[in-house]
């Protein structure tokens, strides 16, 4: 077989992958190689396997909660014995502030380790296309680290719920994401309680000051973001039925009352006493079952719904092919999803086989994450240079696991190609090159990482640079390196 054209090699490495490395050999058949990468993909690479998981993160949180509860109890006892004037204490006693500070420090350190693990996996993987799909699905099921509860859990979410399921059935990915403690806490599901559940009944009989009840957040985002997609025809009533079905889905260790079944820290637990009893109706379909199985059955149907197929097809095509996805490609991807019952490999095979994805132009503007990873791979890095990289990603506008929204990061150029953002990439390129540029000949590197797309103008600018460092910075900031 003839060697692949430089274009095809560049597209496989840069558009489907994470950016070429200097020593990447051109595969004999780049299309076949993309699919073969799934055999080489490691769901639990060493850099990630070494990190504490959600159980440990949850244990830290539980111990913090327990100390806080103890404090509250102590205060109540003290208040009942002291004179009224002595009870007007400050809202946050110093020891509690310290403990919270300590938990925050611990989580911040864990977050840094998790980001480094993610970066190391992206730099050393023998399977860049599946690795890109990890980032894609993690963003699809976005969990953001704003809340203290999720700050230590967004990394484990990606490692535990996303990585193992990217090449399986969509329903398994969906269930894993929806049941992970990070998602249940991020979208406020962990303490939602059915208004007619046994626990709510008891609260009413007790005359409790605040009645427990529903929270629509997770139910809504499952329909709007994770499966069907907004505007696909579900109603507010469907959102509420989904929310009712999800009552009882909770997490061990994090949740303070009402009393439910004990469960290991960070583990999914179903609380039968919180579940809204009765059959449900979703999208005109009746769900007779009850308990944990009810929402599971809904998710199973949602995962293979034609609207879900179309929603996912559109996002995949937008991610890998063009900001405005070619309609014919979306049709074929959606059809593959429906025909295969949501087998993700069947969908990826259609994507890789699509002529639209192999058009020679560079249709996509890299996100800050894509650009940073490709720059590090181009310069031969195998591990995060130092912790400041997490900060640089934030300055570039895409701090890892902090999209700030359950919709995740945007995937179109208009969201990333902006004046200040461009200036910042040049600055980061300069900083990166200042550290390693003297060991790299950017003139020799350029054709290796941009085969078929390197322009004469860029080659010339790199060749005429005032220093090796400046030459490398210009290469990483070049138009053909900013796009894929």
């Amino acid at each position: 077989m003839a060697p692949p054209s430089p274009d095809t090699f560049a597209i496989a490495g840069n558009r489907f992958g994470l950016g070429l490395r200097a020593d990447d050999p051109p595969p004999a058949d780049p299309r076949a190689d993309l699919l073969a990468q799934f055999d080489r993909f490691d769901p639990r690479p060493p850099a990630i396997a070494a990190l504490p998981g959600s159980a440990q993160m949850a244990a830290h949180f539980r111990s913090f909660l327990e100390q806080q509860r103890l404090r509250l109890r102590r205060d109540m006892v003290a208040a009942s014995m002291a004179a009224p004037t002595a009870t007007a204490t400050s809202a946050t006693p110093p020891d509690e502030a310290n403990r919270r500070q300590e938990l925050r420090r611990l989580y911040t350190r864990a977050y840094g380790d998790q980001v480094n693990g993610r970066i190391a996996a992206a730099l050393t993987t023998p399977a860049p296309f599946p690795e890109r799909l990890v980032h894609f699905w993690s963003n699809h099921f976005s969990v953001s680290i704003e809340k203290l509860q999720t700050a230590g859990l967004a990394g484990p979410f990606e490692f535990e719920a996303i990585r193992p399921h990217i090449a399986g059935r969509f329903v398994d990915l969906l269930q894993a994401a929806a049941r992970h403690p990070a998602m249940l806490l991020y979208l406020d599901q962990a303490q939602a309680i059915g208004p007619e559940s046994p626990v709510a009944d008891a609260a009413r009989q007790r005359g409790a000051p605040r009645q427990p009840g529903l929270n629509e957040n997770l139910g809504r985002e499952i329909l709007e973001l994770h499966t069907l997609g907004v505007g696909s025809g579900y109603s507010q009533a469907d959102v509420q039925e989904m929310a009712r079905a999800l009552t009882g889905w909770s997490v061990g260790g994090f949740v303070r009352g009402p009393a439910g079944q004990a469960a290991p820290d960070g583990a999914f637990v179903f609380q039968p006493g919180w579940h809204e009893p009765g059959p449900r109706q979703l999208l005109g379909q009746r769900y007779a079952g009850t308990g944990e199985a009810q929402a599971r059955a809904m998710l199973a149907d949602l995962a293979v719904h034609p609207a879900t197929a179309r929603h996912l097809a559109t996002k995949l095509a937008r991610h890998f092919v063009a900001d405005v996805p070619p309609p014919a490609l979306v049709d074929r991807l959606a059809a593959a999803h429906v025909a295969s019952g949501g087998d993700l490999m069947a969908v990826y095979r259609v994507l890789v086989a699509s002529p639209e994805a192999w058009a020679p132009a560079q249709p996509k503007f890299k996100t800050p994450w894509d650009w940073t990873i490709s720059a590090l791979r181009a310069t031969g890095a195998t591990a995060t240079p130092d912790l400041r990289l997490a900060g640089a990603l934030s300055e570039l506008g895409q701090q890892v696991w902090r999209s700030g929204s359950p919709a995740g990061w945007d995937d179109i150029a208009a969201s990333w190609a902006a004046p200040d953002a461009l200036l910042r990439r040049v600055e980061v390129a300069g900083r990166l090159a200042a550290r390693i540029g003297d060991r790299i000949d950017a003139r020799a590197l350029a054709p290796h990482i941009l085969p078929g797309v390197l322009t004469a103008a860029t080659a010339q600018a790199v060749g005429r640079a005032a220093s090796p460092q400046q030459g490398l910075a210009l290469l990483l900031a070049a138009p053909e390196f900013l796009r894929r």
Partner: protein
Amino acid sequence: MIDRRLFLGLGAATWLTPQLALAAAATDRRLVFIILRGAMDGLAAVMPVGDPAYAALRGNFGPPPDAGVPLPLGPDFALHPALAQTGALYARGEALFVHAIASPYRERSHFDAQNVLETGGTAAYARKDGWLNRLLPLLPATGEPAIALAQTLPMALRGTATATAFAPSQLATADDDLLARAGMLYAADPQLHRLWSDALAARTLAGADARGKANPAGLGRLAATFLAKPHGARIAVIELNGWDTHSGQAGRLNAQLRQLDTVIAALKDGLGADWAHTVVIAATEFGRTAAPNGTGGTDHGTGGVAMVAGGAVKGGRVVTDWPGLAPAKLFDGRDLAATTDLRALFAGLAAEHFALDPMRVARRVFAGSVRPMSGLVRG
């Protein structure tokens, strides 16, 4: 319940992911649009205490006890205590609130609703440009290219008229030679060439304010820096995230409102005498449920509140066609019904403030389907 303080997250500025964008015009009038992303609870911000159904719905679900005392806004409404400085503006006649207001959007997706809020359309993604961008060509022409200054441009300012974005950066500035050569690298690339020129211009204008950590006061001051220049930007957009309070609302909303209050106060301070010619409007994509949900928060709703502040505002009023909170009056049996169209407020403010024909603004900026409000700005 999980303690509200646990939601404060990592670091003080957790809920603030601010963006600032500006555009220029040859007028001494300034307009600042603050987008509150995540759906602010209007019933908590401007509390309809005169509505008998309010106490029944919200009873003990008010501001946290240590937040202070709500400020009365006449007999029917009270302001959340975290908005103390905005309340002082109200008392001076420099702030007003429009209640039971919403965009034409009636579903409950943040992302679609924000698109409607920013494009000024009637449905999500029906328009490809922002209403503030469409307003720009109606303003007196300026001799120099319009300038905009944030990391990326919010939808409200995207479109054919020139506007750009700027945000303070903690990065070390690259050396001038690298910047010059990068500029040459982009010379033949139309997209990157324009971005690059705008970026350099914005950073020059920002001067010493270009570097630093984003915080509410700094953001307000930075916006004021750009707006106060004699030929500088006249329209600014500030984005404040974090209003999606599904749980632990009391503490989170208190912190959010305090940030908003700080931004408004810093704008006023930074603008000095120019505050007299300024209108600030803060709006959100939709309101939240009238009743709290089961987890100490509120879910996505419909009607909410918009805040208008500035020296040019005819303030000291709550403007509303109040629909009532009795169960039968609620939209879909759960939300404050919207009786005012946000676009009517936007169109009216823009027209009066920049002395434009209201119908022309309605036609050109909002496709003519709105009747602009009037009497919002001092004559």
